[in-house]
């Protein structure tokens, strides 16, 4: 089960993800912002929170780490921070690397803070920091 001893654990970067014009347009439309000219055309950028498409992919490695005993369906997303060095752009090939920053375990639940670093072309583009609240069934903890 996850504990403070896992603070600092990192996972290998995800396979490169190519940001496509079609996916950016789909994401902008899903936010009701499909008519925003910034998200189309030859110089299209992605909506800022598109970063979550990449960061949440990196969460998979942590949920697959059996030593931690985490399950996505028992997880609530309690807060989210993004810091951008520049916007994600159509054509970027992005990798996502997850690091566990903080663990506060109490009884049957744990608050886990993790940062996913998004890199494109050898430069940091965005850090996406999330706090998750995970709750175990009481019988698993006893």
């Amino acid at each position, binding site marked *: 089960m996850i504990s403070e001893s896992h603070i600092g654990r990192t996972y290998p970067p995800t396979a490169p993800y190519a940001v496509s014009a079609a*996916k950016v347009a*789909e*994401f902008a*439309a*899903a*936010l*009701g*912002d499909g008519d*925003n000219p*910034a*998200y189309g055309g030859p110089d299209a*950028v992605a*909506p*800022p*929170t598109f970063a*979550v*498409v990449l960061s*949440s*992919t990196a969460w998979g490695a942590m949920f697959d780490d059996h030593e931690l005993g985490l399950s*996505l*369906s028992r997880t*609530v*997303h*309690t*807060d*989210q*921070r*993004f*810091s*951008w060095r*520049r*916007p994600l752009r159509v054509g970027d090939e992005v990798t996502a690397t997850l690091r566990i920053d903080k663990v506060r375990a109490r009884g049957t639940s744990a608050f886990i803070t993790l940062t996913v670093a998004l890199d494109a072309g050898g430069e940091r583009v965005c850090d996406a920091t999330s706090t998750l609240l995970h709750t175990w069934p009481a019988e698993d903890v006893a």
Partner: protein
Amino acid sequence: MSTVEPGTVLPALSVAFTRATLVRYAGASTDLNPIHWSERMAHQLGLPTVIAHGMLTMGTALRVVTDWCGDPGRVLSYYVRFTKPVTVDDTDEGSTVTFGGTVTKVENGVATISVEARFDDTKVLGAATAEVRLD
């Protein structure tokens, strides 16, 4: 953008989230958690009905900021706490969320904006703050 100062109020935005909005966001974001589309699964977790993705509310709220500053590339940071879920019944009108923003600080060419999101007269995002480059 030259007259930006603490107290500057950004134009507000109202958006109705329907089940179709949630399904579309699920596909676009790849967040397929069933609590956003299955009443059965939502009930199992003690929710009255399905709830909007927190990230949908977060992303839609930022439109207040990007519409105002004109260029999404100016956004330097954005933080929210997910304080209350937005429940979405299976109706044509859906759930209307109202979004607003107020400049709280201008320093070194960066404006700090306090973002607000309300549903049913209740704040659904806590401490929501974006930083935007002005120059």
